[in-house]
Every structure is written in structure tokens, then in C-alpha cells.
């Protein structure tokens, strides 16, 4: 038997099998289709074969990175969660995936990456604590900038910023999407009856972060809580297909008290303080040396012949 494909995705956390929407989609689809993947749960995207997560590495086809491409690869290897769907159901799948990407995804990006309170208290904290030094210093910020840029381009608004206006517009679209999904799901266990399909994987990937991560500032979560069938849908998938992962990293409740400042929530606060002190000391010493406040003199001493082959140089610091 051929070696199984390798799937690289973000590690579990915040009560989820993976903290990233795309990774959740691929993980869910793989479980639904029964694909025997060797899963690498990592917290450094540079360790993946494509430099981004999720990524699938196969022996024959190389590596691919987008959920749609990964699902196509799995289907090529006869792991298909949609095999018993009718042609019309296949068409509905495409349509509802588009609905998710156009309406719900922008609001999800906003809630996790753009909203300042959520970003500082949850997103940046998690990535900061789970990435290795020194990536944790710059990668979360870089990821946030990318997500903001992506959101601006998706929405066709080059000046989009965190604020009430943007939030209202994005959450309005997302709430409509949640209601439409709820109506389409109805009282079914999954979107097309009793067995999950790729649409269920996509919906789960987009809803699970809202369902599980405790965000200090997200009206959308409250709206989702009011839609019982979508809540049941998420908890069913977590308990049936991810029984261990969902218990592993139950999200830490976020304090309702207003933090003193952004710095209170910095990951590795002590280490950063120590590093900044060291950098400051190094800078002061460099300045002192260059301006001549501290001088280093080379003094040559004469010694009896034969004691040394050559002259010795001793450094002395004069303060």
C-alpha cells in the first residue's frame, strides 16, 4: 500500500481541532471521507511544504495548499464524501460554498483579526503563545496585515478599517448568511440528510470558530447561539468526528473586565521586557563607545626576553 498523504495544518487550540478555518475544512472533509492522512499539527507555517497552512503533500502530485485543491486531490485518491449526492445537490454545494465565502468569511476575518479587542485578547495571544521565538514577535502582526489587506480586496474597499461602520456592514451580511444556512439545514442532521458532505465540511470550518472560541467582542456569536440547529450541527461534528480534539484545548474564558492596556495581554511579557532592557543597555554602551565616553586603550608592556615569543596585547577598559 502506498504511503499515506501528509497534511500540514495549524495545531489544535481554543477548543478546536485546529484554529484556522481552512484547516478545519480540510480536517473535517478528511474525516468525513475516511482518508488515512498523516497529520502534522504545527504552529509554524514555514515548516509546511508550501509555506502556508493547510498543505497536502502527496507522492505523485506534489503539494497543494487551498482547501478546494486539497479536496480535489483527496477525491482523485477515491476519498469522496460527496459520492452519493445527486447532480442538483452537487450544484447546491457549490452555491452555498460561494455564499459562505462571500458573506460569512469576511465577517469571520473581521471578528478574529481586525476587531482590536478580539485580536489582542484572543488571536494574537494564542498565536504568540504557540509560535516559537522569534516568530511570535512578528508573524501574528504580519498575518493580521495580510488579513486586513485580503478583507479590503474582497470587499472592494481600500480604506476599510476596524470600526462601527465596517462591523455593521460585515455582520449584517454574515447574519443574513447564518439565517439562510439555518433555513437550508432545517431539522436535518447534515445538509444533505444523514451523512456529511463537502458542504458540511465548509460550513463547519466557518462556524466552528464562532461556535467555540470565546471572543470578548462579537455580536455574531450571539446571533449564532440563537440558531439552535446550527449549534447542534457544530457540536454533532465535534463530538462525532473530533471526540478528543474538542476536549483537549477548551478555550480559556476571557475576562470581562476592561484590560489596562494592550500590553497586559502580550504573550511572553517577561521575556519581552528582559529583551528590551538588554537592547537598551547594548544601545547605551554602543553610544558610549562611539562618542568616546568610554575608551579602550591598547597598552604595550615590555617583558623579559624569552618569556614570550611575541609582544602581548592586553585590553584595558578606562571609564
Amino acid at each position, binding site marked *: 500500500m502506498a504511503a499515506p498523504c501528509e497534511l500540514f495544518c495549524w495545531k489544535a487550540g481554543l477548543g478546536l481541532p485546529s484554529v484556522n478555518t481552512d484547516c478545519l475544512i480540510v480536517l473535517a472533509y478528511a474525516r468525513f471521507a475516511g482518508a488515512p492522512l498523516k497529520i502534522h499539527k504545527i504552529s509554524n507555517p514555514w515548516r509546511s511544504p508550501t509555506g502556508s497552512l493547510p498543505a497536502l503533500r502527496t507522492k505523485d502530485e506534489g503539494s497543494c495548499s487551498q482547501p478546494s485543491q486539497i479536496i480535489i486531490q483527496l477525491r482523485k485518491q477515491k476519498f469522496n464524501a460527496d459520492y452519493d449526492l445527486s447532480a*442538483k445537490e452537487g*450544484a447546491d454545494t*457549490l*452555491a452555498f460554498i*460561494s*455564499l459562505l465565502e462571500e458573506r460569512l468569511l469576511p465577517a469571520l476575518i473581521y471578528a478574529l483579526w481586525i476587531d482590536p479587542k478580539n485580536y489582542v485578547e484572543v488571536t494574537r495571544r494564542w498565536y504568540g503563545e504557540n509560535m516559537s521565538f522569534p516568530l511570535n514577535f512578528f508573524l501574528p502582526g504580519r498575518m493580521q496585515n495580510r488579513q486586513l489587506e485580503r478583507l479590503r480586496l*474582497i470587499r*472592494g474597499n481600500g480604506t476599510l478599517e476596524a470600526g462601527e461602520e465596517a462591523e455593521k456592514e460585515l455582520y449584517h451580511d454574515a447574519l443574513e448568511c447564518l439565517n439562510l444556512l439555518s*433555513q437550508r439545514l432545517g431539522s436535518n442532521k447534515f445538509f444533505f440528510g444523514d451523512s456529511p458532505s463537502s458542504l458540511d465540511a465548509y460550513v463547519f470550518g466557518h462556524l466552528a470558530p464562532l461556535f467555540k472560541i470565546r471572543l470578548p467582542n462579537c455580536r455574531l456569536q450571539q446571533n449564532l447561539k440563537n440558531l439552535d440547529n446550527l449549534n447542534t450541527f457544530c457540536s454533532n461534528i465535534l463530538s462525532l468526528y473530533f471526540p478528543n480534539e474538542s476536549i483537549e484545548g477548551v478555550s480559556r474564558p476571557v475576562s470581562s473586565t476592561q484590560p489596562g492596556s494592550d500590553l497586559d495581554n502580550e504573550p511572553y511579557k517577561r521575556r519581552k521586557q528582559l529583551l528590551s532592557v538588554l537592547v537598551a543597555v547594548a544601545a547605551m554602551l554602543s553610544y558610549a563607545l562611539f562618542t568616546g565616553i568610554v575608551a579602550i586603550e591598547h597598552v604595550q608592556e615590555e617583558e623579559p626576553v624569552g618569556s614570550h615569543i611575541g609582544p602581548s596585547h592586553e585590553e584595558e577598559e578606562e571609564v
Partner: protein
Amino acid sequence: MSLAAEAFVSQIAAAEPWPENAALYQPLKEDQILLSDSASSLAVQTFLRMCGLPVQVSCRANAEYMSPSGKVPFIQVGNQVVSELGPIVQFTKAKGHSLSDGLDDVQRAEMKAYMELVNNMLLTAELYIQWCDDFTATEISRPRYSSPYSWPLNHILAYQKQWEVRRKMNAIGWSGKSLEQVYEDVSQCCQALSQRLGTQPYFFNKQPTELDALVFGHLFTILTTQLTSDELVEKVKSYSNLLSFCHRIEQAYFKEQEREGQSGSSRHSKGSLP
């Protein structure tokens, strides 16, 4: 604007009847308008005709810059300006004109989902072909887009637009796609629409909805627009029920003398449906 103010504005809008002098603005039909804008404009015109609402089509070289969202087409009704199909549908609904009132909740959910499918796949594919395929961009898109402007502004604006679209394609993960993959996506989208339509006259049986207007706008424009390659047209032509659907809407809502005007210039367009 606060929610109270918004509600007040929509109440005023609802109270006023649809005027006779409502105008729809789009880029110049003969020399400037591109496939994606032409499709969006035709979709809005079709929707308004289905609602029985009169509108005067006004072509302006600077339509894109007149629009509040920077997107075309947009309509001016009294002192209100609304751009793009989605907001226009909401606006007409506030005035008591809706095509989807007869649908149940599940059908409405499906209709919205299929509209997003068209925007997500067909519209994006049109933009990709126009601006990311170098041959089409050089031969058609840049010259047409910049035709109203003189040198050097024509080059600056055309390249700026191309850069914007390419950045968007990168953001949504389309920059790595080949032209063949894009055509495959169009085919997949058409297959989904064909399956949903089946043998019905409209997507939700007897009555047209905004989905029918949107799909007609895009498919009719693709079928009647001359590009550097016929591959896009061939993808659509392979679905006979979609062709019949386009014929049906063209016959029902567009009179003989208006057909030529809808599909653009002789240089850019192939006239009415084959």
C-alpha cells in the same frame, strides 16, 4: 448613518413612487464598457424590466467615478443613488417591488446562494479573462477601458485598474490559476446553474426572480461579446437549457429594436443570440 436615520430614509424612499425619469448609468457602450460591467448592467436592466419599472440608460465615460461605491452600474431615482444589483434589489423592495416574495425560506436561501455563485465564479472569471490574460488585456481591455482618456492618463488608468484586479485575484487565490482552470470553473458554474434550472422556464419555476435577471445578464453578455477566444462562449453553449433560458428572457423582456443596443457595439459584440 445611524440605524434610526437609515430607517427614516428607507421609509421616505418607500413612500415615494417610482419616477418616470429614473436613470441607470454605465460606461460608454460603443467604445468603453467591458464584459463584466456590461453583464452587471444588463442584469440590473433585466431586473427592473421584470419589475415593470422604467429606467433610462445613460452612458458616461466617467460612470465608474460617479458611482458612490466605485462600481457600475448605478441608478439615480429622485435624489437617491444606488449601485450594484444587490442594493438595487433592496431599494426596489422598499418601494414595494419584489420578484422573490412568492418564495419560501428554503427557496430564498437557495436563490441567494446561487446569486453568490454567479458573483463568485462567473463575475470573477470575467474579470480574470479581461485583466489577467495578457492577450485579452492588451487587445481588448486596456484599449477599451482607457478609450475616453488622452495620453498619458489612458495608460495610467488602464494599468492601475489591471493592477487592482490582479491584487484582488491574488487575495482570493485566483492568481495561481491558469486560463484553462478558469474556463473549467466557468463550466462548473454553468453546470450547477443548468442542473438547478432543469426543464423549468425560470430558476424557481413559473415566475422570474432576481437570480434569473443576474444569470441572464452574465450569460447573454458572454454569448454576445467578441473576445480574443471563443472558448468562454463554447463553455456556455454546451448547456442547451441555459441557451433556451436566455432566448426566453430576451423574447419576453427586450423588444426587437432594443436588442442591438443591449449587446454593445459591433466591434465588441456579436449582436443578439445565435
